[in-house]
């Protein structure tokens, strides 16, 4: 149990640091940045109690907001993502999740990619909606969501696989 706590704490701070120092300064094609900090929410233990999970996600988003001066955009999106995660888990893993025997380091690659893609698309859609905050610019929101999500999905899949192999 303690190792779960330790690994999640380390993941929290490591992802935060990588996000604000590297990933938010990539500016690929002028405006595309991946938000890899959501890996923390993706890989949070399934069997933990949900209020704690929501609070952790909120704090993660809040600290990212503080670094990026973005108001409450990332805090809001992270809380949303944490709240709807069971739906995506159920969709992506089906019976594994129903029987409560889901372990993130023993998964098929295709299931993992489906899970990461849906979670990322949802999160980025909320982020850009809150950031632009103007429904008449829905095309811009969708464009940003799609391109940034692609970047995040590739990067976070690689990161998850990289650190899984080491264990």
């Amino acid at each position, binding site marked *: 149990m303690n190792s779960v706590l330790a690994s999640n704490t380390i993941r929290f701070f490591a992802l935060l*640091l990588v996000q*604000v*120092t590297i990933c*938010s300064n990539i*500016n690929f094609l*002028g*405006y595309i*940045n991946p938000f890899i900090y959501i890996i923390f929410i993706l890989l949070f233990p399934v069997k933990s109690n*949900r*209020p704690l999970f*929501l*609070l952790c996600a*909120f704090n993660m*988003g*809040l600290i990212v*907001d*503080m*670094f*990026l*001066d*973005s*108001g*409450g*955009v990332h*805090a*809001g999106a992270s*809380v*949303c993502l944490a*709240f709807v995660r069971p739906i995506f888990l159920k969709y992506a893993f089906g019976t594994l999740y129903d029987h409560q025997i889901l372990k993130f380091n023993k998964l098929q690659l295709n299931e993992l990619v489906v899970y990461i893609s849906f979670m990322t698309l949802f999160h980025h859609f909320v982020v850009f909606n*809150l*950031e*632009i*905050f103007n429904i008449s610019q829905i095309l811009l929101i969708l464009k940003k969501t799609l391109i940034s999500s692609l970047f995040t999905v590739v990067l976070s899949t690689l990161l998850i696989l990289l650190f899984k192999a080491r264990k």
Partner: protein
Amino acid sequence: MQQIFNFVIRNKTFLLFLLLFGIALSMTIQSHSYHRSKFINSANSLTGGVYGTVNSVGQYFDLKEQNLILVEENKQLKEQLLNSTKTTETVSIDSTFTEKRFSIIPAEVYKNSYNSPNNYLTINRGKRDSIQQDFGVITSKGIVGIIDNTSNKFSTVLSILSKKSRINAKLKSSNQSGSLTWDTKSPYLARLEDVSQFAKVNVGDTIVTGGQSAIFPKGIGIGTVEEFKTDATGDTYTIQVRLFNDMTTLQHVYIIKNNDIEELKSLEAQSDE
């Protein structure tokens, strides 16, 4: 009563979600609608410390470019000095009593962003360097933004690349003024609105600060006219301005402190009464 407690306990996750999302949403709305971003900002020792460490490594990568910018600025200043028609006669005998209207404080950019609708910079000067809200920030080429939040050692700057920013600017040739905003499309272009139709505008004309507010002195460069068109009402021009500054590669900036600001403010407060 029992039922209410049961309801709260049964739906505690959902209620917590609503609470947290409500907090986040209100902070987002607050950051969109008011000029100040009060609650969460990067002018604090945690973010400043992290960005400072990153910057101490990152600054070496564009040393050459920054040197060229400094040499260019030195060249301009030397030219001004050598071509100045004023001679030593105008220097007052006792400089103790000739007050400077503006003081300049150099600073380094720790964080820069230019791809969200409201962009902020974090710089390494704060309250202990006597920086306050509403001081102007410029580079040798042109304006950058206005100080927003300050902590002891760091400040955030509301960039001109921001929907919230409105800066008084004018055409250098005809002195017709308007307000400078940003349409969030490109970090190289800003928009000058509400310029009277009486102004003669040509593509390539210089836009400078207007000096009608206490933030920027008159005549600091902003950019050149890229294109202009008559706006919907038909009596004003909307001008696309190509900025002098490359807002994507800022490193060294100057903060302008208006030494008369206390007096101006108290005067304005008096006339409001």
